[in-house]
């Protein structure tokens, strides 16, 4: 009887759909595990300003030395992040990255997270050095591409009020009272296709 049950497992599995996929499947791949360590993403505040302050803690934490940052000061004329500092240059070199996620743990502002995107193969080293523009999260509804002023409150105090003790995702909507900067370089594409138009490093 026990021998038969073994055969039964084999028989059943023969007619089951295989879990192993062929790659590439041109977008038909199954979804990865929710916490899969894929390509990085630089997140934004609800008004589109960058959460990254250019502190370089991710670069410090990186065991593969894959992250390069040059910070700069925000000014009222050109504001990319709500605070004093932002990353003027942010590069991740995916020929070096080992997807360990230590950079995510080091990030003090939750600016850097990892997405599920794993299809990173490319034809040149230069194209695997992702720039800040490539890493930035797409603009969601209500977001305006920086540089612009703080749309969640003009002062830093107003902007950050109530955060982070709520422990809730920041769902605030940018204030419409504040005159908006027209979105000049707004992007609408949500998932970026890697192609020949890439700017390199």
């Amino acid at each position, binding site marked *: 009887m026990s021998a038969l049950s073994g055969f039964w497992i084999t028989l059943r599995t023969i007619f089951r759909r295989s879990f192993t996929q062929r790659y590439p499947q041109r977008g038909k791949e199954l979804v990865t595990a929710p916490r899969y360590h894929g390509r990085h993403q630089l997140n934004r505040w609800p008004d589109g300003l960058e959460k990254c302050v250019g*502190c370089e803690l991710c670069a410090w934490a990186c065991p593969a030395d894959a992250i390069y940052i040059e*910070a700069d*000061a925000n000014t009222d004329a050109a504001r990319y992040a709500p605070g004093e500092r932002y990353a003027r240059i942010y590069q991740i070199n995916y020929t070096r990255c080992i997807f360990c996620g230590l950079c995510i743990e080091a990030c003090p502002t939750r600016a850097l997270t990892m997405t599920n995107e794993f299809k990173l193969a490319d034809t040149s080293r230069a194209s695997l050095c992702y720039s800040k523009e490539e890493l930035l999260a797409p603009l969601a509804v209500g977001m305006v591409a920086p540089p612009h002023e703080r749309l969640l409150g003009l002062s830093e105090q107003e902007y950050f009020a109530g955060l982070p003790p709520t422990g809730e995702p920041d769902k605030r909507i940018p204030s419409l009272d504040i005159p908006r900067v027209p979105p000049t370089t707004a992007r609408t594409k949500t998932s970026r296709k890697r192609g020949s138009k890439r700017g390199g490093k």
Partner: protein
Amino acid sequence: MNAVVNAVELVKLTIDGRSVQVPRGTTVIRAAEQAGVFIPRFCDHPALQPVGVCRQCLVEIPDAGNGKSLKLQTSCTLEVAEGMKVATQATSELAAAAQAGVSELLLLNHPLDCPECDQAGECPLQNQAMLSPRQVSRFDGVKRHLPKALAATPAIMLDRERCVQCMRCVRFGTEVSGDVLFTMLGRGAEMQLAACPGAAGGGYFAGNTVQLCPVGALTSSDYRFQARPFELVSTQSTCDGCAGGCPIRVDVKNGVVRRRLAAGAPNQVGEWLCDRGRYGFRSAQTAERIRTPMVRKDGLLVQASWPEALDAAAKGLRGLAGSQVALLPGGRLTLENAYAYSRFARVVLRTNNIDCRTRASSDEETQFLTRKQAAQVFATAPDYATLERAKQVVLLCFEPEEESPQLFLSLRRAVRNLGLQVFAVAPYLSAGNAKLHAQLVACKPGDEVRALAAQGITLNADSVMLVGERAAISAGTLKWAAETAAATGAKLAWIPRRSGELAAIAAGCLPTLLPGGRLVGDARACATLATQWHMTTLPADVGHDLLGITTAARTGDIRAIITGALDMRDLPDPELLRRALGQTFVVSLAVKQSEVSEYADVVFPVAAPDEQDGTLIDWTHTRRPVVAAVRGTTPPDVAVLAALATALGNDLGFHTTKAALASYNALPPWISVPAVLPTITATSVIPPALGNVILSTWRLLLDEAYSLDGAAVLQASMPTAVARVSPETAQTNGLVDGAIAQIGAGGARWHGPVRVTPGMVNGVVWIPALTQTAECGQLHALSGERVILTVAASPMPWLSPNGPPRFEQLWDNVYPLRQARGGEAR
């Protein structure tokens, strides 16, 4: 030195059970350092007076030496006593708890913006907090908030939220530099740091407060967000800003110099650094930087390959006799580079037409320098320590704060602590000399010696004469100084403004001198050098100096000139050199494009000071190492001259700076016999030109020098150019304070606001040389010449004598604390 130590009474005490002996008067925190016990501190600094304001260094004193215990004491203010027992945080729970409490208190209102703060990673407060047993604050209220970084001075950003009120910056201003930039306002919880209004550009030493600040309250606007400490590669080098020879630390990220810091040990020379040294390194990073050789083709400078440029230079120089070529290496070279120029002149070009002084000079100065160098008097030059032993210092044609800031700080320290008396022989008491409490010996330019004699100041072996490079145009001053030093035993130091002049003189970049103090024309000296250089003979005729070279070039006697870093505006008459360069074949070795490039036929790129190894000789005649912080792609002058020598079918003897120094060091020592030394004769007085007043002028530390190009914070810190006159002179010429004066000489006009200066000598107008030339126009007149002083025909509103309004705005911003607190719900 031993005798001094033995004379001090030693006190024995016990710190954490460790016995230590220290001199009486030492504070407990210093004694603990000697015992190898570290007590955390913020306000304490070895170079500043103890104040005990941060309370971080509290220790328990079980026995104060008299058998009685004391309550918790700040170890930075408590003096040691015989038999004292100290228990620090390592052994005393009470002290540890007190320190943790103070740490928690300091962090109550300290923002947690370390990721944005430049100090993070090298912050004592951060380290302290990470060591604290309590990693989570018990404070759950709203922190005090003040507006973020304000520009306290052009170079300093002030963030009051981060301040721990240690008052280091305040004490630095009063105790060290004399520029009071910061002060504490309010009391208790409302105490805050404020920038003093009217502290215009911030003085010349403001950058030190940033380095002193133990938190991120004061940060450098130049270094703002440039790098993180962990990614910086640091190099110990020497500043090339002046002849002070200050040790510096050069921090590089990604192949770019990001900042310079003072690198001297506490209470030693170089502990502080002037702002010129600290921020004046951007010049090589500007767009004018030359990276490839260039050759003039059809009137245009075009990029060329190295062989092409070397061929072009060799073609222009080949076939010229020694008397037809000249070299102007400039005064900013390292010893190695200057030696390469010197040897190139004698061996390859066979000429003595070489002068490192691209500034107003005179025969008297040439004789003075030749005599000093040839007799090896420089080797026994006074140094910083001499100033501490001296009783009086006479400043002749020398402004310490403007020309040698480190020397100024040493003088100020000696004045404050050791009762040094300073006599400033000048037309007026400058702000720098006032900070030295100097006694003014008011005199017209060129009249220094007579004024000094009229005051009845007698010099003796306890006196030091500090003579600046401007003495060259004050006829008879150098002669008098040399004679007085010999007669009275007073020490004499000649202090050039540029970092490389003493090295260039040692290397023989003067028409009268060969390397190592050998005299041109001294057959025996030449013979030793010729042997060393594998030559049969060396050119024996004394060459032309700068003036001679420009004159000979105009008459066609000199047909080719090789220049180093040269700023035409430094010359007494730039037009003369312009015409000379226009008529000759010019080979320029330059870091960046300048006016000389317009006249150059061949341009070779050379390494910037931060990119090459070398040696500088400071005013104390001490060798100071320069270490490359960045490996650039451009070679040092040595390598270019060696390649040019090869292109001319000759051999310079070395190709690298290391080999050049070895070659220089291999020269046998030489002391000229007194018989061959030149006598110093006073130059004739400048003929009086038409004019109602005598001009006095000198370069300020921060001006429009090429070497400060790209240093935006320095350009913003530059003092406003004013014309100073005495009250009587102002009245005679119809001028009032703040009016716009016009000074004319030889067709050129200078405009600027008048500052009536009491105590100034009559009949003299002082203006800064080379400051805000864009607005003022440049005057081609030397100190001591007559100029025409009048009221400007039309007022110029953009030349505000009050400077920019930034500080008044800052002052308005000082008291928002109360409002901010009132606005919060508690």
